[in-house]
């Protein structure tokens, strides 16, 4: 591991230890936050007892579907907008404003369109995640150096092979930024919607524990989410770093 990695581990360990201490000494009431060790124990119980496996599967499946959909659709939409400068000039200013509106306000609308349950939740998450993918696609396609297009023409390549063999790999590092964001937002979108609206999934399980003041269970589940997010992010980071190292110009 790199030096930064070790320092990071140390910082996190220190933060966790501080929280543990604060809880154990009663500075933070256990009715609000439980010690990290108790969270870990609770997580072990949750996983061992298997009572939330169904929720975990539902949530992760929703996240995965939402992430894949927003990445794929985001790239397509981004590519189309990019090819069409007039539309782009019109749409781009709207993109950043978009995050101000809580998407789950539209849940009733989505229920009409997608029915209740995971589909509507996935739709909310896609709505949240797709914008960062579109933006990243635009940036990525912008950054393809003109000279690569020229080179492709010198090799007598057609539009399709040009897009596939030059455009896509050349834009990939930027697309990956979008991928990372899209995954993060897919997580936020799914869990938060489940928390507020749904009757299933990890978000719902947390909300349920929250409403029943079952802090042990709640924090156990939250720890699980943090761990999953960290693992996914670390994996994406590793891929990203390899891409960056290779594709940096």
């Amino acid at each position, binding site marked *: 591991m790199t030096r930064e990695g070790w320092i990071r581990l140390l910082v996190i360990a220190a933060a966790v230890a501080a929280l543990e201490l604060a809880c154990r000494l009663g500075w933070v009431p256990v009715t609000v936050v439980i010690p990290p060790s108790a969270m870990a124990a609770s997580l072990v119980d949750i996983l061992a007892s298997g009572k939330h496996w169904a929720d975990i599967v539902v949530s992760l499946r929703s996240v995965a579907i939402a992430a894949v959909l927003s990445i794929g659709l985001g790239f397509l939409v981004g590519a189309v907008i990019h090819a069409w400068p007039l539309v782009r000039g019109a749409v781009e200013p709207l993109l950043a404003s978009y995050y101000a509106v809580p998407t789950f306000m539209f849940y009733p609308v989505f229920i009409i369109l997608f029915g209740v349950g995971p589909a509507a939740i996935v739709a909310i998450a896609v709505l949240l995640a797709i914008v960062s993918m579109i933006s990243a696609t635009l940036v990525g396609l912008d950054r393809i*150096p003109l*000279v*690569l297009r*020229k*080179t492709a023409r010198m*090799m007598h390549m057609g539009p399709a*092979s040009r897009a596939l063999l030059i455009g896509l790999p050349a834009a990939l590092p930027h697309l990956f930024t979008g991928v990372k964001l899209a995954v993060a937002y897919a997580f936020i979108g799914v869990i938060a919607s489940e928390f507020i609206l749904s009757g299933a999934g990890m978000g719902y399980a947390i909300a349920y524990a929250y409403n029943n003041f079952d802090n042990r269970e709640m924090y156990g589940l939250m720890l699980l989410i943090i761990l999953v997010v960290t693992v996914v992010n670390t994996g994406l980071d590793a891929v990203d770093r390899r891409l960056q*190292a*290779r594709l*940096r110009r």
Partner: protein
Amino acid sequence: MSVSPAEVAVVPDTAMPHARLVGVTRVFSRRGRGDDVHALGPIDLDLKRGEFFSVVGPSGCGKSTLLDVLAGLATPTSGTAEFEGRPIAGVPAGVGAVFQEDASFPWLSVTDNVAFGLRRAGVDPAEIARRVDYAIGFMGLRGFADAYPAQLSGGMRQRVCIARTLVMQPRLILLDEPFGALDAQTRLLMGDELLRMWRETGATVLLITHALDEAAMLADRVGVMSARPGVFIDIVATGWDAERDSRIVSHPRFGDLTGHLWERLRVESLKHLREG
């Protein structure tokens, strides 16, 4: 000994030219702004088959634009461009180009970069392997066949691009500042390699460069362009024989040649400087 323009005057050209530009101009119209940029010409130029032609000129005078026209990447606003007797429309077969900017594909290894064009063209794999291997060795990239461009210096990346163009065995090779990423000294050494390659393949070469000594050492003829819109204000035959290399810089006529080129460009550069 000074070389006056009279002594190195344009050699009358009788053979059928390999590439020919007649009255070529190029104007960029800027939408919305109204003011057009007359970037190039009118240019008349005949490239003889197998000749090594260098172009020098102030920055922004239209050298890269000229190359784009010959490569079929840009159509002249007026005038005609021909390659091997046929008008240039689209990129002609048999023409290869190395651009001013780094055009290596960062997602491919050196070998895959060099083989890229051949694979597109559907050349037989064994033949690809043979040619790529040769080109990589030729360009001094042997130890880096599996490296990616990010692991190479700017100069080495340019060599990858040159190799990628050479393996296609073009009959006309267009080079736009291919050694821009190198220091002056290393440039001259790379020039030696280029001369060797040129002799071996017998291709016609058009080389754009900023460095007058490079132009003077490498070319059969050196075209001197004016500030924008670039036209040829002089075309100087160097009179070197084909077996030359960088040691030519200590030839007494070399200093006179560069001095002459410099003198022709001084006025143009001053113009350019005034304009900003």
